[in-house]
């Protein structure tokens, strides 16, 4: 399998505080990588670098041959490559970030029409198919505020998929949800994994990580401390810090 994402020696600082230290990570097509780690360990920052929501100071990111390079001192960067990467990489946020002034259907259709320049008919057919798939066909003309958190997050997933991304990034997709709604969102993600979507998931749902991940990456204080198949990480962690983290989160 060829790599679709290659992160090489990525470093990032917020002022004097370095949040990522020489992080390298390669993801192959069809792989599901789950990133775990304590709050503030840099895992969200890492995946937000992949689609350029965060700038970084050193290293490189290659997505399907398109390169993101460090920003210069004034924060400028290569926008043409970033534009290509954003077309290929979808992202789902902790807070959903649906567009509140647009209906569910409009949320899903907007980017295909404006960015991919699809005809409205085609965009609408695609949107309806995706909304049907996430179980929201009956809600397409509602506004986001009329939906539950779980429903909103499923719309957000459909909205990302409408751009036909080759990679999906999930930034703590269930952390803002009431417990009874976590399952419906994980179920949609499970379906995507089964179909072979390349996914990078930041989550605190350890059971889900063990079940769907091809590889689990443990990040601690901005460094990749340990990575491997879920069984190896969860049942036989090599690093003391990984053991300590897992015993903290698995106790609950």
């Amino acid at each position, binding site marked *: 399998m060829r790599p679709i994402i290659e992160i090489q020696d990525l470093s990032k600082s917020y002022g004097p505080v370095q949040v990522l230290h020489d992080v390298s990570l390669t993801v192959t097509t069809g792989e599901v990588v789950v990133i775990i780690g304590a709050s503030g360990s840099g895992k969200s920052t890492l995946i937000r670098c992949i689609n350029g929501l965060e700038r970084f100071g050193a290293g490189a990111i290659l997505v399907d041959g398109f390169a993101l390079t460090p920003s210069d001192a004034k924060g400028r960067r290569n926008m043409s490559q970033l534009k290509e990467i*954003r077309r290929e990489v*979808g992202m789902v946020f902790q807070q959903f*970030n649906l567009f*509140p*002034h647009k209906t569910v259907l409009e949320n899903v259709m*907007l*980017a295909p029409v404006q*960015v991919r320049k699809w005809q409205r008919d085609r965009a609408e057919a695609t949107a309806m198919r995706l909304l049907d798939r996430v179980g929201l066909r009956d809600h397409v003309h509602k506004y986001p505020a009329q939906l539950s958190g779980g429903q909103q997050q499923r719309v957000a997933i459909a909205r990302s998929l409408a751009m036909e991304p080759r990679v999906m990034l999930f930034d703590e997709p269930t952390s803002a949800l009431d417990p009874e709604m976590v399952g419906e969102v994980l179920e949609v993600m499970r379906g995507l994994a089964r179909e072979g979507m390349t996914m990078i998931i930041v989550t605190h749902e350890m059971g889900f990580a063990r079940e769907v991940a091809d590889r689990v990456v443990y990040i601690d204080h901005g460094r990749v401390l340990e990575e491997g198949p879920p069984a190896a990480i969860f049942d036989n962690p090599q690093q003391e810090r990984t053991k300590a983290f897992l015993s903290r989160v698995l106790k609950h």
Partner: protein
Amino acid sequence: MLADLISWAPELFEGLRLTVGMTFGGMAIALVLGLLLALGRISPSAWLRAPVVVFVELIRGSPLLLQLFYLYYVLPAFGLKLTPIEAGLLGLGINYGAYLSEVFRAGIAAVSPGQREAAESLGMSGGQTMRFIILPQAWRIVIPPTGNYFVSLFKDTALVSTISIAELMFQGQLIASDTFRYMRIYSIIFVIYVVISIPASMGVRWLERHFNRSAAAR
């Protein structure tokens, strides 16, 4: 009193027509200019931001009356001769545009940063994000304060009487100097202004409640 009112009605009506025209014309310029200045002020380019900040502060830091005199009496010295109406519309539009730009800037800043991130992660350009995501949401936030400026502009059009635009205030002054019936004519002018501005203010407050309600429902 009624006989006076009837005999003065044509002039007063003509004045009111101009007052309303100056209000809408000035507001149209102010809205466009305010949006452009707001976008300039949040631009990533310091070369655009700096002159916009200076311009807005100069306008907000000086009297509207002085700005009107500048446009009408000083610009001709630089070879730009404006008619009273042109100078009046431009003066009102620039002055209110500077104030509205701050309202718009605050409205744009009030839209959650997650909205921009979502739009950018979908591949939308900065312009598309502004047009389809940020501005439609900022618009709801700025409608009530913009409405208040609109009512305020209606009253401030009285200032353009000083550059010989025959709006309501100007007509009142003409009638006063012809008839010396100061109390009568200025009371009539007073009533005309408040009969328009008070319901307009009530309308703005209704809009405010309406938008707060629909924002809460979201």
